[in-house]
């Protein structure tokens, strides 16, 4: 069996790799949590790429219901068709719309199914999927058929912690919390995203970045994806490593900080601290 250990453009820490491989081997869903911007959703894309499997994504919103992932019965269209005398109306199958789970169960090749941001949905949403995720089958009441997975899909679920998930649901999942990468891991992540980037620039940028993250009182601390965006900007503008540092110079705010700080109050706080540091 193929083992997942990150890809050319994704660094998976050993604990993440173990969790992914175990979830694949035991055919159970993997629940991934972590700070925003640490690559939870990206993980599904990379696992699909590494396993060479088709990827089916189901982005959950506050209005999404569990049944939509299975199928939807379009009663309104059928009613309209019946009034217009459409011949298709006789077969109820014409009005069943397949959901993402059905799609995943039907795939002849083992797919990767991403259920993104499960915490956005109603509090009952995970409970409604218990049996489906456990047995990987469900029943279509309208036609009386049972849809069963041909191959059990690899299921990845992400959550941003907006709601607590029910115990019964958690018991069926593997769980992994992506912790914020330390400097070495971050270095590796940057290396795969920007091969050939100047070492000095990375060094200075990382120092600035971690200093910024350590600043007390920040409302939204910048994360991996913001760092990558920032580096991209720095590269595009061809900014010299010295400018990024600015330890003692007059302006202490790193260039293009808009990529890192997304909150007005954070920017103010930062400017104030920079001002104090300059005086002192």
């Amino acid at each position: 069996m193929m083992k997942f250990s990150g890809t050319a453009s994704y660094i998976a820490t050993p604990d993440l790799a173990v969790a992914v491989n175990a979830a694949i081997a035991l055919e159970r869903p993997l629940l991934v949590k972590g700070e925003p911007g640490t690559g939870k959703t990206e993980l599904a894309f990379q696992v699909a790429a590494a396993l060479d499997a088709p990827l089916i994504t189901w982005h959950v919103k506050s209005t999404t219901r569990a049944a939509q992932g299975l199928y939807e019965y379009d009663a309104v269209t059928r009613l309209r068709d019946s009034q217009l005398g459409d011949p298709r109306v006789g077969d109820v199958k014409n009005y069943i719309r397949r959901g993402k789970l059905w799609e995943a169960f039907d795939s002849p090749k083992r797919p990767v199914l991403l259920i993104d941001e499960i915490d956005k949905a109603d509090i009952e949403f995970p409970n409604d999927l218990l049996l489906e995720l456990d047995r990987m089958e469900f029943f279509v009441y309208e036609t009386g058929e049972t849809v069963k997975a041909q191959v059990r899909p690899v299921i990845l679920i992400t959550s941003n912690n907006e709601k607590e998930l029910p115990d019964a649901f958690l018991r069926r999942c593997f769980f992994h919390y992506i912790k914020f990468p330390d400097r070495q891991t971050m270095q590796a992540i940057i290396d795969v995203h920007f091969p050939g980037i100047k070492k000095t620039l990375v060094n200075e940028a990382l120092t600035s970045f971690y200093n910024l993250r350590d600043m007390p009182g920040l409302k939204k601390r910048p994360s991996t994806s913001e760092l990558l965006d920032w580096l991209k900007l720095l590269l595009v503008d061809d900014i010299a490593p010295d400018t990024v540092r600015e330890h003692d110079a007059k302006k202490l705010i790193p260039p293009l900080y808009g990529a890192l700080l997304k909150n007005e109050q954070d920017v103010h706080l930062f400017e104030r601290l920079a001002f104090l540091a300059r005086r002192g």
Partner: protein
Amino acid sequence: MFLQFFEALRAAKLPVSLKEYLALMDAMDRHVIAEDVNEFYYLSRSLLVKDERNLDKFDRVFGEVFKGLESAADLKTEIPEDWLKALSERFLTEEEKKQIEALGGWEKLMETLRKRLEEQKGRHEGGSKWIGSRGTSPFGNSGYNPEGVRIGQREGRHGRAVKVWDRREYKNLDDTVELGTRNIKVALRRLRQWARDGAATELDLPGTIRDTADKGYLDLRLVPERHNAVKVLLLLDVGGSMDPHIRLCEELFSAARSEFKHLDFFYFHNCPYEALWKDNRRRQTDTVPTLDVLHKYPRDWKLIFLGDAMMSPYEISMPGGAVEYWNEEAGAVWMQRLLDHFSHAVWLNPAPEKHWAYTVSVDLITQLVAGRMFPLTLAGLDGAMRELGR
């Protein structure tokens, strides 16, 4: 051995069930992981822990149960204890620590470490690994350096100075530590009650189908959108002993503001008396009589007090006990009036729970609110919201 591990986890109040234990056994049977204690740690963690708040507990239990396992399995050459001790002393003495701090550099420290590591490598070419453990090596010791220095980075997986679980990186995710706004919001959401009122704008599909079937033609039915119908009245203690908690209170306040559509707040000092106020700068002139508050807000509003309840007992029990002015009636009388009116009420206390027992006034307030005092931690907030949601 694994059963013992399982029992230890249960004893530490980690919610693990038999099902998860069996899954772990299954995974071991199928050789999902290599025979390596680190991989076993990762595997069992991802199977047995389902909430990042429990990660720290898990690390502690794992460290206790499997103590010495790594050294038994991994070490090929024995390294004398004294040698380790000597090394750690040589590594960084107290003086050196001070020196490094004086040099003001984490970078500097890293550099020193790097140099020492290189020395270290030179000396031990015989295939033995050098190890360190908590307490003997200054690196990775969470007391001195909360992040933990990953000494083993350049030597690959086995060279770690500190065992992965001993690093306890998830320490601040434990639910007994104070929290950020986002976590508060999550906890506050327990209070949500969905209700439908307002304009009918959403298609009611079941209703439409039912009515259409009844009437024989397409009959669209609409229902109002549902939204959070909880109403909260927040009374905040300001000034004096509350000053150290101001950040935490701000966080709770801002989280509550965005979470509840119906939220109103007033300030008081130490204990509510006959007047409350909304603006701390005009607290002497611009006050609202507490009786008006009682009359304005109906009984279905939920009342949350936020204060440390640390004051002189007289401020609660005696008329004229207030620190700022002469109060005709005792604080307890006003508290009772508020509590009689609002049947759903809790007192949130930002002071650590272990300090409560030393203050008489906290006891008095706890009695007044009939035990509904909760610490301002994630767990406490959770309990408070359950209480209010009843």
